[in-house]
C-alpha cells in the first residue's frame, strides 16, 4: 500500500496553496483589466459631455450676425 510521508503531505499542501495563489492572481488580473476599461469609458464619457456642454455654451453666447 502506498504510504505518504509527512514531507509528501507538506509538499502537496504547498502545491495546493501555490495553485490557489496563482488562481487568485489570474482572476484578479482579468477583472482589473475589465474594471480599468470600464473606468476609462466612464472618464471618456465625462470628458465628452463636458466638451459638448462647453461647445453649446460657446455657440449660444456668440452674437448672431
Amino acid at each position: 500500500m502506498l504510504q505518504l510521508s509527512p514531507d509528501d503531505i507538506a509538499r502537496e499542501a504547498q502545491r495546493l496553496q501555490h495553485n490557489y495563489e496563482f488562481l487568485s492572481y489570474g482572476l484578479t488580473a482579468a477583472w482589473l483589466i475589465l474594471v480599468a476599461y470600464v473606468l476609462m469609458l466612464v472618464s471618456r464619457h465625462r470628458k465628452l459631455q463636458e466638451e459638448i456642454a462647453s461647445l453649446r455654451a460657446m455657440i449660444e453666447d456668440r452674437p448672431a450676425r
Partner: protein
Amino acid sequence: MRDKLLFVLGAAAMVLLARNILVIAGFPNEANQGAIFKIIFFHVPVAMAAMGCAAAALVGSVMFLLTRNFKYDALAVSVTEVGLAFLAANLVTGSIWGRVIWGIWWTWDARLTSALVCWLLYAGYLMLRHAIEEPTQRATFAAVFSIFAFIDVPIVIFSIKWWRTQHPQPVFWGGGSIPGDWYLAAVLNLLAMVLLGIVLTVARLRQEEAQREIDSLRRTAHAF
C-alpha cells in the same frame, strides 16, 4: 428605455458572473492541475468573446465599405475596443496558468504568438484611427485595416490544430472529457461575457455618437 435595457443587461451579466464564481468555487480541484485549472472558466469565455468581437468588427468594417454609413464604422471601433480588453484578459490569465503548469510565463508557440499578434493588430487599428483627422478617410483606412487584421483570427483559432503547440488542444467542445455541470458553468460564463460585451459596446457606441455631435458643434462654431 434604452438606458433601462442596458442597465438590466449589465445587472444580468453581473448576477450571472457572481453566481458562476460561487458554483465554480464549489467544484472539486482537477486531478492533475489542481485549483489553477478553474481559471479555464474565465480564460476560454473571454477568448471566445474576444473572437466574437473581432468577427463583429469585420462585419462592421465590410458594411462600412459597402454602404459608407458611419454607424457601421462606429460599431467596428466600439466592438474592437471591447474585444481588445477581453483578449488582454485572455492573454494575462493564460500567462498565469502557464506559469503554474509549464513553469514559464510565456512561450513563442503558434497559439500564444498568434493571439499576441492579434492583440497588437487591433491595438494598431485603434492607433491608426487616432493618427487620421479626416473622418471619411479615417473610417475607410480603419475598415481596410480591420479586414486585414481579421486574417489572424482563424490562425489563432486553428493554430492548435495546424501546428504542434505547447498550448493544449481544446478542452471544451474539442473532445475533452469534462463533466456536464462544468460545461454548463463554462457556457453560462460565456453568456455572461457576451452580455458584458454587449453592454460595453453599446456604452462605447454612445461615445461615438457624442463625438459626432462634438464634430457637428465644432463645424457650427467655425461657421459663425
